[in-house]
């Protein structure tokens, strides 16, 4: 998959606005949702969100509407990701 290195990394996230994104937190939590926007600190507004807890091996909460995800604990962002298996 060819990536344009001249763009900043956050432009890559910006291209993801409107599509699904998979967010991996510092702890064992992961969030999958549709990206509506983000700010300089990569706080993110997501909708149609599913929250996954990895250790207990199961899906936790499905939230609709919109959430504001605090960017403090974000480790990785995976554009177009569907989340963990199961």
């Amino acid at each position, binding site marked *: *998959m060819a990536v344009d290195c001249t763009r900043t990394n956050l432009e890559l996230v910006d291209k993801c606005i409107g599509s699904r994104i998979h967010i991996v937190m510092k702890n064992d939590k992961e969030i999958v949702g549709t990206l509506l926007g983000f700010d300089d600190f990569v706080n993110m507004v997501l909708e149609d969100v599913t929250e996954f807890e990895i250790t207990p091996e199961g899906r936790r909460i499905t939230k609709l509407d919109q959430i504001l995800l605090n960017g403090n604990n974000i480790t990785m962002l995976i554009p177009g990701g569907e989340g963990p298996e199961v």
Partner: protein
Amino acid sequence: APFRSQEKKKKESIFDLSKYIDKPIRVKFQGGREASGVLKGFDPLLNLVLDGTIEYMRDPDDQYKLTEDTRQLGLVVCRGTAVVLICPQDGMEAIPNPFIQQQDG
């Protein structure tokens, strides 16, 4: 005179990541996560773009098990605020624990 250091400092990086572009690197994060992938991009805040990313997760009971619990993540943006270590993939190897004392009897 007291403002001079502010002018010269700016945002110089102490380490140039451009030599790792298109090379596989290992990244460790706050919280214990580890990942490796090909470095495709970075910025002065240490946000990274990795391609073909593999994540290694640590099991609390298994201490440090590398082969268990890996998963393919593909193209990933890593938050610079969470990065604690970056090294080339071929610049490290796992060794047996050098601190274990031989217990006799």
